[in-house]
């Protein structure tokens, strides 16, 4: 067979395999990588964890996912074998979220997992933490997040318009894996804040209902920037009853400006919690009267939408080229787990 004929043969089979996956309902809408047993062994060789260890579950559906199933779906997602330990750590982190072990994947809000990676592994695997961090263009970011989504679809059987009942979903579902821009952050990395040793390769995760940008290149006064952020955090649209939630993916410029102004991360969290406030009148205008309700954050004047400062996660990510930040909306009104999970790679 000539080289050209061999190529034609390969391409024919590659296309047939991809179309087969579509016909079987195994894809999220994008083409997948066909996976063979040999490929899975390569992935399993990258982790010290046993192939039959359960890494993810939805107890109320009676479904569990093993390391091997996660590896098959990671390979299908386009991961390289060395990404598998990150995918598994992402599941460790996600499984600490109450909404994940409940029915969160089926929610009408169609939440998306935000996977945050810390440590030197970001450079080793090419996990983007700088420009365009929430967007496309980086294999590790895109495929690690997609590997989580394919498990939800294939292993748990939670598919849109079936068990997954998102009204609209959020743009970026199963694409949100970011590295923290530790190099340009003025503060300690998230994983260190959450108790791990500095330089530990680790993943934190939460489900998001959406994110919304703050473009403030207008002022060098940190309190004005904080006020701008708090205004977005306090949107009535994010509130269900007295419950809302918020976190920050701060751009480098905002983070450095706040730090230069003397704010630690904890002080930013406290400032936002104190100032993100809606009056009873404003809640009424949105048809969300809180009359007769009680609880943290609620007083005679109105509602502190995120009463617990600890429940405002802060990550620094993105380029240092404009003063942009994101308010993210973690799903689950009891908050997020505040845990970071080490990435366990196979010893070389």
């Amino acid at each position, binding site marked *: 067979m000539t080289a050209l004929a061999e190529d034609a043969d390969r391409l024919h089979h590659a296309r047939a395999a991809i179309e087969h*996956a579509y016909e*079987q309902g195994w894809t999220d809408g994008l083409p997948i990588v066909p996976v*063979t*047993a040999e490929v899975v062994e390569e992935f399993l060789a990258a982790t010290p964890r046993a192939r039959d260890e359960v890494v993810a579950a939805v107890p*109320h*559906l*009676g479904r569990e996912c093993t390391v091997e199933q996660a590896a098959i779906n990671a390979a299908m997602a386009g991961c390289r074998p060395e990404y598998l330990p990150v995918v598994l750590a992402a599941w460790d982190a996600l499984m600490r979220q109450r909404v994940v072990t*409940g029915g969160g994947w089926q929610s009408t809000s169609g939440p998306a997992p935000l996977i945050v990676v810390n440590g030197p592994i970001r450079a080793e695997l090419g996990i983007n933490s700088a420009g365009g961090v929430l967007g496309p263009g980086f294999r590790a970011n895109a495929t690690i997040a997609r590997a989580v989504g394919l498990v939800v679809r294939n292993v748990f*059987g939670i598919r849109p*318009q079936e068990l997954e009942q998102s009204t609209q979903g959020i743009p970026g579902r199963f694409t949100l894996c970011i590295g923290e821009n530790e190099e340009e952050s003025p503060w300690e990395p998230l994983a260190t804040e959450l108790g791990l040793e500095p330089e530990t390769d680790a993943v934190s995760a939460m489900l998001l209902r959406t994110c919304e940008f703050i473009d403030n290149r207008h002022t060098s006064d940190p309190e004005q920037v904080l006020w701008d952020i708090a205004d977005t955090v306090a949107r009535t649209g994010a509130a269900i009853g007295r419950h809302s939630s918020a976190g920050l993916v701060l751009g480098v410029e905002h983070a450095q400006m706040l730090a230069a102004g003397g704010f630690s991360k904890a002080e930013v969290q406290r400032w936002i919690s104190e100032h993100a406030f809606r009056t009873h009148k404003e809640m009424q205008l949105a048809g969300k009267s809180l009359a007769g309700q009680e609880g943290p954050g609620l007083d005679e004047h109105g509602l502190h939408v995120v009463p617990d400062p600890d429940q405002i996660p802060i990550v620094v990510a993105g380029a240092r080229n404009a003063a942009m930040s994101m308010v993210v909306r973690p799903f689950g009104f009891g908050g997020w787990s505040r845990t970071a999970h080490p990435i366990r790679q196979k010893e070389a």
Partner: protein
Amino acid sequence: MFEAMLDPTGGPSATATGPRLAARPARLDGLVVGLVANPKKNAEPFLDAVGELLAAEHGTADVVRTRKTSITDPIPPATLDELAQRCDVVLIGVGDCGSCSAAAVADGIAFEAAGVPAAVICTVAFRVSADAMARLQGSPGYTYVTTAHPVAPLDEAGVRERARRALPELVGLLTEAPVPVVAR
């Protein structure tokens, strides 16, 4: 020239046995009714209204109320055990979101497995989710009662009217052995 392509679906099952349906009483008079409300708006008023109508028209003896604190989670096992001990039948609702409708069906199937007849109320918008959950729980065609969507914005009178309309079907579901629906 190529190896077998692997199937990425399906993991090990966490629950091996399928649920069974509880035996039904012939009549509801004198029975204690459990009300399992999720935290969605109007769920409690809806179930309360059904409870009042059952007492007035079918002579039920008492109600035991419980309010789930989570939209997404199944009923906690301790709460389920307590209700199963204290109640003769239970009403569960109102499933009007993706995760809470699926959770309501799962709760209903769990009560049936514990020997307590259950009637689950979901809005019509979430039949797909409710049916998919029933299949996953090993109880395809599990029968529940639907009410129009949505429930959350209804006023007090609207909620009572919905409860009144759902009542005959709920009573039927609690007193006659439900016939599984094969295709829906």
